[in-house]
């Protein structure tokens, strides 16, 4: 994740409690979605940015997950996510984001 964005997420997480804060991702593949989910939960796995070694443990969801989709406007959702829902490997993306959200083990 961009270093400046890591710093912003870190600052916002410090300013609010994790019960209030939610991270929503929009990556089109499981690799990058997993990487971002890991960054905001366990810390930056590339050890390049401000979140290296900083396990924020934030609740993180992908925009494709039913849990967050249900409360969103259905028309807006179709317009902005409908195409990716068709093109992306939805199950694989959700699997990895959920893995990091739930604390996971060493590996899936």
């Amino acid at each position: 994740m961009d270093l400046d964005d890591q710093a912003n997420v870190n600052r916002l997480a410090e300013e609010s409690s994790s019960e209030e804060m939610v991270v929503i991702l929009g990556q089109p593949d499981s690799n990058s979605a997993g990487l971002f989910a890991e960054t905001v939960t366990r810390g930056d796995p590339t050890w390049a940015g401000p979140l290296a070694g900083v396990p924020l443990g934030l609740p993180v969801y992908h925009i494709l997950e039913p849990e967050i989709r249900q409360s969103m406007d259905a028309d807006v959702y179709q317009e902005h996510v409908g195409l990716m829902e068709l093109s992306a490997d939805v199950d694989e993306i959700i699997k990895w984001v959920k893995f990091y959200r739930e604390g996971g083990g060493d590996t899936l």
Partner: protein
Amino acid sequence: MQNDPAILYSSYVLAHAPDFVRYGSKPTRDLAAEPELLEQMAGSLRSWDEVLAYPPNQTFIGNLTPDDLAAIERPWYENLVSDAESEGPFGRMITQAALYGLMKLCDDFDLLMISEALAEQARSELTGFEHRRDQITGATTDELTRFIDDNDGFELYHEGVVAGFIRSVHEQDASLEAHVLFENLACKATAVLAVSELLENSPINPEDVDYLFNTGEEAVGDRYQRGGGSLSKAVGEVVGCVNATGSDIKAFCAAPVHALLTAAAVVAAGLHKYVVVLGGGSQAKMGMKFRAHLRNGVPILEDCLASMAFIVGPDNGDAMRLRLDLAGKHPIGAGSSPQAIYQALVVDPLEQAGLEMTDVDRYAVELHNPEITEHGDGGDVPKTNYRTLAAMAVLRGEIERDEMDAFAAKHGMPGFSPTQGHIPAGVPYLAHAHAAMRRGELQRAMIVAKGSLFLGRMTQLVDGVSFVVEPSAGLTKSTEK
């Protein structure tokens, strides 16, 4: 019509520059924090022979087609091409020594000093440029030491040892600082070779060129106009385009497609006859994914500068017509959803002509080599783009959902371009498209480019532009015979 605009010729160049990787933006930042990474990096750089025989590189210069590449098993860095050539039908690959020679002959302000040994190697490995070869001079060890002592700047390496130095021009001017000048000079030098190749391999002479559009992403200028300058005329000067002027079109990765469209419009309007669109290499992007490559035991694959050039002019019967009536753009008001973007870039222009998505034989999208990006955070960019196009065709009812993979395979291609910003943006396919049209295998291709405007923090918007190319009438007739 007399001035029907067409892409007449294309050229592509790769310059292997393993000792430049450490000066890419990412390696520079990471090495400052962790100097011990340098040794690991040095052990993961590829040799000239490995880079030469790397299948995506052979595709870039035209010795393999994208379909040939798709048939080669991954990882490509382990399945090298036997008997690889440094020259191809679309251009050539050069060594690092030759690149230093090019940079020397492009250096009009004595910014760069190289050793006598490197200069000698450069002269032997770089052919051509007779009128400027005398600028490829070397310095003695004493001269080089004095230059280093007397100037701000940084040392340059060749084969792992110090072999030169580039100086800052003005200690209080961040725009003329050595690192910026190094990027600009590398961009100019590689663009010079691409334009030189382009003109040498076409019947159009340098003095026939009326106008040059540079599309590189470097910020040329000084403290009062950072990035406000131009490389187009600087490049044209070296290759002898004495009758041309030029300007730069800046649009992040989408710049080449903006520039080709503009060039075609300029030709159609009759303002100029022959317009060259060019783009040099992005030194800043070298080694961009090197940490991911090191973590995954992959060689550092971003070890080349890439450049390209195109001539746009009136259709000569053996060219690719650029259909100005089928140009796509992502307007400001279109919205940021992927659907809105692809509707604007792909569907809207086709619909104007009563065409369906399946009427385009091949789409050329962001053609980043997936082997470079998928070990890190980027995934397989072309694959994602082709899946999205296929999904768009499903939404439009043109294909069934279970035909998406087949659509992507038939209308797409594997990425084969270095991750050099503006270079991969659809345009590496143009010469392949032209060759396929000459063989009678391709009737219509669409080039689709996107630009990440939000990176500059002045807007959240993305950008995108597209155009369609079709064979000249002459090509269609010759294949009918």
